[in-house]
């Protein structure tokens, strides 16, 4: 930001801060974004970061390899706590994977222009998060080599999955979401891939990008088809944003475990997912724009808008917490009442308080514009919300299981080295994929940014 602009907390800022920095033309946008992939030298920082992430990814592979050798007993799970880190991580990653499609699809349908510069990497992040999430349902089974039994394939024995089980609904919800997100992302990429094809100088790049561009020539007919396909996919993806986490929440609300069996879960899980998804977009966007000098494309207005979405969804989540709490007491159900007492006073109470702190109290700072526009604060806040949302799943999934119906069977859970290795390992995989993504694909949609150039220049006239 140059000097002479109005102060940060001015009410004018919203109107004045553009979604695209001033002075950009078609060429400058294209140059700047495609340069990251094609011409700029890969920085040492990228190599260091990638190697670091790659080695953490290696840890994940070792953890999973050892798991396959020994069995799920290497984790901290037991009877009564049959689900531990694996399911917590699954729900957490799936939640994170919500923001991308929400930004691309719902905001697209709502014609929110500010989505343009963040949708591409938000979608990529979604895909990577779903990939991370997808690992867990597979590896958490006792016999992962039979996990395919959860798919309805024509088995010679004529056996089908058991469709009353929410886990089967999960399989469909997550795989559909993953597929549609991938298609949506890929369709959006086609014009940019063509740009890269046209601009790349080496043969292999031309061939690879050329193949991926599916023969895009930028004709009016192409654009017309492209836009209707994109619109249709956006329409298709929109309900999925809401459905995936709704179905994931069924894993719990359909069960009879106190703390799981709650009708408020679907909306509360979706809100939580968007909350954590936006937090993760911020966690990635802030270093990305800094590293590649994209402050003009991902402007303060983007960050602020995302902060606002976080504040709003965070409040919905807080509402969820409150009503979960209230309904437990109001119902008078002794198991639910006991659960509330356990959350407040039980052996895991510190986790519950930490969750309230991370997800409800600290994000209230976002009411202040000074906070919303402070990049460092936003970055820290996004991390805190991610931790908080992870804790939320831990509290719901694990702590509910520690003390359910039969006091004689009450137990406790504590993660092992391998639990942590798997969690951190998937983070490594996620970061590694992000690094690869920014290196080989345009992190910001060139085509849409070009549109934005036209639109904003008209606005500023």
């Amino acid at each position: 930001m140059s000097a002479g602009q109005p102060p940060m907390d001015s009410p004018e800022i919203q109107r004045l801060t553009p979604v695209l920095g001033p002075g950009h033309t078609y060429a400058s946008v294209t140059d700047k974004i495609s340069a990251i992939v094609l011409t700029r030298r890969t920085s040492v920082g990228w190599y260091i970061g990638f190697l670091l992430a790659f080695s953490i990814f290696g840890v994940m592979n070792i953890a999973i390899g050892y798991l396959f050798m020994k069995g799920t007993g290497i984790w901290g799970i037991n009877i009564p706590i049959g689900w531990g880190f694996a399911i917590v991580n699954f729900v957490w990653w799936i939640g994170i994977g919500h923001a991308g499609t929400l930004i691309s699809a719902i905001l697209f349908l709502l014609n929110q222009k500010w989505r343009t510069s963040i949708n591409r990497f938000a979608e990529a992040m979604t895909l990577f998060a779903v990939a991370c999430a997808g690992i867990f349902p597979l590896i958490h089974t006792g016999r992962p080599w039979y996990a395919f039994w959860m798919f309805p394939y024509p088995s010679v024995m004529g056996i089908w999955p058991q469709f009353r089980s929410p886990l089967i609904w999960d399989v469909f919800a997550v795989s559909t979401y993953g597929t549609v997100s991938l298609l949506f992302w890929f369709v959006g990429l086609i014009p940019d891939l063509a740009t890269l094809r046209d601009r790349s100088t080496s043969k292999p790049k031309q061939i690879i990008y050329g193949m991926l561009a599916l023969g895009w020539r930028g004709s009016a007919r192409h654009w017309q088809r492209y836009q209707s396909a994109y619109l249709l996919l956006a329409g298709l993806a929109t309900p999925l944003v809401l459905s995936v986490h709704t179905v994931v929440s069924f894993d719990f609300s359909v069960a009879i475990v106190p703390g799981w069996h709650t009708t408020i879960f679907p909306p509360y899980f979706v809100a939580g997912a968007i909350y954590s998804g936006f937090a993760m977009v911020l966690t990635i966007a802030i270093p990305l724009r800094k590293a590649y000098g994209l402050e003009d494309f991902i402007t303060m207005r983007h960050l602020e808008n995302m902060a606002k979405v976080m504040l709003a969804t965070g409040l919905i989540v807080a509402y969820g917490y409150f009503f979960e709490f209230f309904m437990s007491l109001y119902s008078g159900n002794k198991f639910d009442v006991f659960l509330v007492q356990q959350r407040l006073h039980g052996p895991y109470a510190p986790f519950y308080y930490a969750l309230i702190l991370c997800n409800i109290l600290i994000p209230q700072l976002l009411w202040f514009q000074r906070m919303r526009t402070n990049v460092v604060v936003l970055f820290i806040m996004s991390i805190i919300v991610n931790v908080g949302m992870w804790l939320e799943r831990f509290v719901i999934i694990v702590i509910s299981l520690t003390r359910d119906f039969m006091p004689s069977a009450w137990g406790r859970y504590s993660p092992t080295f391998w639990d942590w290795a798997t969690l951190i390992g998937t983070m490594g995989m996620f970061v590694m994929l992000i690094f690869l993504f920014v290196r080989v694909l345009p992190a910001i949609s060139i085509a849409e940014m070009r549109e934005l150039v036209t639109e904003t220049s008209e606005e500023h006239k």
Partner: protein
Amino acid sequence: MDGMRENDSIDGHRHNHDAHEASVQADDHADEHTEDLTLHEHTLDIAAVRAKLGEKSGKQYWRTLEELSDNPHFEDLLHREFPRQASEWDETVDRRNFLKLAAASLAIAGISGCRKPEQFIVPYVKQPDGMILGKPQFYATAMPFGADAIGVLVESHEGRPTHVTGNPDHPSSLGGTDAITQASVLNLYDPDRAQTVTFLGEIRAWSDFLKEAETLVADAKAKGGARFRILTGTVTSPTLAAQIQNVLKQVPGAKWHQWEPAGSDSAREGAKLAFGRYINTVYRPEKADIILSLDADFLASGPGHIGYMKEFYRRRKLTGPSGTMNRLYVVEPTPSVTGSSADHRLPLRASDVGQFARGLAGLVGLGSSGTLPPAAKKWLDAVASDLTKHRGTSLVVPGEFQPAEVHALAHAINAALGNVGATLYYTEPVEANPVNQVESFTELCADIDAGKVDTLLIFGSNPVYDAPHDFDFTSKLQKVETSVHISTHFDETAEYSKWHVAESHYLETWGDVRAFDGTVSVIQPLIAPLYHTHSAFDVFAAFTDKPGLTAYDAVRDRLKASASASDPERFWRKALNDGVIANSAYPPISVAPKFSAAGLPAAQAIPSGQLEFIFRPDSNVHDGRYANNGWLQELARPVTKITWDNAALVSPRLAEKLGLTQRAAARGGEHGQIVSNVIDISISNSKVTAAAWILPGQADDVVVLPLGYGRKNAGFTGSNKGFNAYVVRTSAALWSAAAGTEAIKKTGDDYPLACTQYHFQMEGRKILATGTLLEYQTNPDFAHEGDETPKNPKEMTLYKEFAYPGYAWGMAIDLNNCNGCNACVVACQSENNIAVVGKDQVMRGREMHWIRIDRYYSKLETKTGDPGGADYDALENPQTFFQPVPCQQCENAPCEQVCPVGATVHSAEGLNDMVYNRCVGTRYCSNNCPYKVRRFNFLRFQDWETPSLKLIRNPEVTVRSRGVMEKCTYCVQRINTARIEAEKQNRPILDGEIVTACESACPSQAIVFGNANDPNSRVAKLKAQTRNYPILGELNTRPRTTYLAAVRNPNPELEKA
């Protein structure tokens, strides 16, 4: 069960053994395969091959160059049945591996097909009598146990004994068993058993030992027989005793000493004090209305306990509110199984129990008096008046570990109450040679010290481990020139003995044994010895003039000679078939007490403020002899729920005084791992370090040191577990020692204990319904107070109800009859091939028992649920209740709905079937199970490699591997066996035809299984009672397993107080 006992012929046994011998050999062979698993590749010597080729003339065929080079490793490879692959054999034989193996074995078959087999393998030409492959057979035999023998029927699959059931005809079983008896079959297959004769640790042939025995006898005769000694445990076998007498005859002057660390010298001496000689007491709890136990755990340990339990609980069966019950008072220092199921329980220090007995004797007019605390005084008055009101129908039982005077007082009180001949009777001693064992053992030690002992035969005892520490037996044993130890394991004593003879298991030998009432049973083997083992009879025979006499001949001849029957052969067969010898029980004798209670010397009271340390045999490993039994190690002790360890038990108040605490660990928590303070205990000039355990209901200032742990040489499973209480036990203070509080010092360390249930409150939930008999009479529906079970559950669902037109299997568990003895848990483990997971996994909350026994304390409010934060007054004497929890087989099962692959499904007869090979292991079913009865194979818990453990498995039950959920199936294999029989005969399955493993083991018949659709079945009748209720009925799971509320029968006089 009677109908299933088929074998009536000796031939059948013999065939049985032959058949088995073949399989034993096969196993030995298998053993070879597993040795030296890695065959190293050996380099080929081309030069040698050339040389070989040069030597040969004519047409030569060779298979490989290796063979030609005469490489011994290749020879070795050829001689194996499955070279290489055998060593790679894993539990997962997938198609690919199978094909590989098939191809490989085909190739090998081609190679070695021209070789003659070295041994002949003969299939059955004539099938042994009664044996149908795939159908188990049942044989009656008896398990010797201390001064008792437990009659059992053993299930045998193609010659492999796999499961033990009680023998209904045997007085010490009456059809029931206990945990130790159930687990005894695992001792047979224990891979750590000693397998041969050894001398100084080196393997010797049996003939070497025979030769040595001959020399020893000759030497002893030459040097004077007194230098030849025998040390045994308690022996009740007439034949073995006769054999020992034979040895003593061979070596005139030789002496027979006895030592049983958890034996009952006090009972013997008490009888001597009362009657002037050793007398055996047999109780008839069934005849008693009022029973007082003076620190006697007569329902769970000691001679006759299984039969006593059965009889006792016959008087507690309620068919309706008009039913009557006996009343049990228990005075004891530490909560026992008996005490926990008492109607009134008074915690008193062990030394005060004597005072109590004196006081009681005074109140029944025997002229003695005891000093007691005021609260106990009131209790005593009430008990005394209740007893005197029930002359002839009351019973006073003194504890095995109480001093002789308490036993004498109990004899006098019973006589004064007119109970002798009514609720108890006296017989001649059942031990072959009753002696005061401490004196006998002391004499032996003194003689060794005096250099008077050259040869010592030790049998049935492990004195290096379990002798009182003041004897310092280890150094004494080393002074003996030739020591021979006979035991099943190469144990601590074997380590210090010159010769060790591996002893056969009772399922491998012939023999006979006397039960607590004198009944003789023939011990018949079900299997030929797995290893080169010998029975004690054989060993003692070696020292007689007939070393070749077999136990079989001896027992048979002895029995036939004693038979008055006209047809001795028939008599013998009947004895084998029945498992008891008819009319062999000792007749009651009448003896007059020669004892004056008033004349007793003043008791030495332990001053208040002093701590009382008492020693008790462990409920699972007893005196340590079962330490290497994984089933018993992993079995949660009835009251403490500790597994794999023993701990010094302290009362909550004493713990508070000493600042001892314990807490649930983050991993495993209440259902797994409790971290306790470690204490140093310095008493009797010795010191031991133990983990402390705070036990509600224990008398103040009492510390219990359970025996049987801290073994150094028990085997893989039993060594170095817990602490060895024998280290601080002296011959002068065998059962209790006093010391000041400074005897206990916190070391500052903590020790994790594997405890399967630490939480003991019900948190106001409808889990265990209890009431008093009075409540039951006034409000027959008391079990349903506050019950939220939906009245009309069918209206709660849109779907049509599933009808069960045929059988509807159900179970009713009468909590009134459960005292948490654990027999069902081990029976289930044995029947259903349930894995032992080890301490570490138990501490993670992963034990695999399909049926668990929950223990709750009632009328107890604590703030946090941890004894550490508890109200100490409430913990002083809580009422204890036990509840066995198998799968509840819900009709509306939460587990079934959530399984993504349909691996747990509902059967048409209402079972929640578990399809192991469909299970992918999401564990969702377990999460959704409100009763938490599902068990998951988190790791590969089953032992697939150890050859001997393969023999123990029940072939009718799948052996589960890792990643699979498992749970109670109502013994579906037994249901199907009965169904096949019934369908063959074209009739419905009869009530009582299917007996689940837990039901058949239960000595108190608390568990009843059957067809709930048949209104005349036992289970339907129980379910029709008003006491019947489901656990957590408000969840509308509609469990098929229901419970009958526990009813206690307190004395209204004491209730008022």
